[in-house]
C-alpha cells in the first residue's frame, strides 16, 4: 500500500470525505472515516501530510 505521509493534505481530505460519503469500494476506510467530523479529517490530513 502506498504511504500517505507527505502527500498533499487536500488529496487526503478528499479521499477521506469520499470514503465517509460511501464512495469507492474500500475494505475498511469507510468504517473508519465515518468516525470523524470534516474538521477532524482536515486536521488529521494536515498532520499526515506534514509527517515524513
Amino acid at each position: 500500500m502506498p504511504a500517505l505521509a507527505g502527500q498533499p493534505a487536500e488529496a487526503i481530505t478528499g479521499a477521506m470525505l469520499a470514503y465517509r460519503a460511501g464512495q469507492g469500494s474500500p475494505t475498511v476506510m469507510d468504517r473508519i472515516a465515518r468516525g470523524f467530523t470534516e474538521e477532524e479529517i482536515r486536521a488529521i490530513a494536515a498532520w499526515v501530510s506534514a509527517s515524513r
Partner: protein
Amino acid sequence: MRRRALLGAALLAAPALAQAAPKVVVIGGGFGGATAARALHHLGVSVTLVEREATYLSCPFSNAVIAGLREMEAQRFGYEGLRREGIAVIHREARTVEGRQVVLADGATLPFDRLVMAPGISLRPDAIPGLDTEAMPHAWRAGPQTLLLRRQLEAMEDGGVVVLSAPANPYRCPPGPYERASLIAHYLKTQKPRSKLILLDEKDAFSKQKLFEEAWAALYPGLLEWVPLSAGGKVVEVDAAEQLVRTEFGEHRAAVASIIPPQAAGRIAQAAGLTDRSGWCPVDPVSFESRQRPGIHLIGDAIIAGAMPKSAFAANAQARVCAEAVAALLRGEAPAPPKLINTCYSLVEPGYGISIAGVYQPANGLLADVPGAGGTSALGAPAAVRAAEAGYAEDWFRTITADAFG
C-alpha cells in the same frame, strides 16, 4: 530568538523544572509500552523503559506459527531501535511501585514524575481445576507455549480430535480463539484430513461471528465444530493425564488440547494497587491515568477500556494518546479529549482475511463507540476482497511493529 526569550520566562516562572527535566518511566515493552516510550521520547520527554525480556515476541500472527504457516523468528523484535534513538532500556523485572519510585526485582529503584504501565495480562490457569499448561498449552503469550502447541499438532496422528477453548469476556484479543480454530482447521484439512476440531466456548456470541461462520461453512464443513455456552461450551475441569476436557454437559477426549484460561491485568498492576475487583485497571479515558493512584498511567490489555477491545492495535493507539497526555500534564496543561481507532484483522485461511474496526471517544468515564462508525467486513464478499484484507493484515503488522520498535 523569540523562542529563547519565551523559554527563559518559563524557566523563571518554574524554577523546579529548571533544576531537573521531568522523568517518565515506562513498565512493559510490548505494543503499548514500546510505542509509549518512543512517542514520549519524540515529544522531548526523558524516558526509561523497563522490560523483563531481552526481546519481544508478537502474539499477532502467532496463530499462523501454530498452524505451521510462519516461523517464530518473524515474531521477534528487539529494543536496539529504541536504544539507537536514545531511550534508556533496562531489562529487569519491575516488582512494585512505592510512592514515586519503581522497585525492580533486585531492589534497585527508579524515581519518576509520571509512570506509564503497559504490563499486559496475567493468566489464571488455577481457575480451571486440573489444568496443566504444558499438557494443554494456552499459547496466549507468544513464546515456548506457541511452539509447544505447534509440535503437539505436528506429532498428532491423522484422525485425532483437537479441542480448543475460548474464555468468557473480557480477555486478550476477542477474535483470537476463532482465528486459531480457523488456522488449525486449515492445517488439519491440508495435512490430517480425517481429524476434527471442537471449539468449546464460554460465550454464546463472539467477535466477527457471522464472518467466521460463513468461512467455516465454506472451508471446514464437518471438520470444525463450535460449541457455545448454552450447548455446554464452558470448560469446568480437565484431566491432563487422560487428555480429557470436561464441560458442563459432558467430556471430550483430546489428541491435542489448547485451553485458554481466564485472565487479569499483569501482576505488577495488582501489586501496585491499580486493579479493581474485576482484576483489571480502571483509568480516565482522556489521560489514561489510574483512577486509583494519581501519577500512574496505564494502557493496553491491562485496562478497562469500555468498548475498546484488548488488541495490539488498541494498545498502540492508547500509547500515542497517553504519551500526548503525559507530556501535556508535565507542561501543566490539561490533555485534550482523544479519538482512537482500532482495527483487528483475522485470517481464516492463507489469503482470506476479515476485519472489525471501531472509532472510540470518551463518554461517561469510559471509551465508547463513535455512533455510525466501525463494524465488520461485508458478508458474502468476493474472494478478491478477502485476499485484499489478508494483504492489509500483513501491511498492518509491518506498520505497527515499526511504530512500536523502530
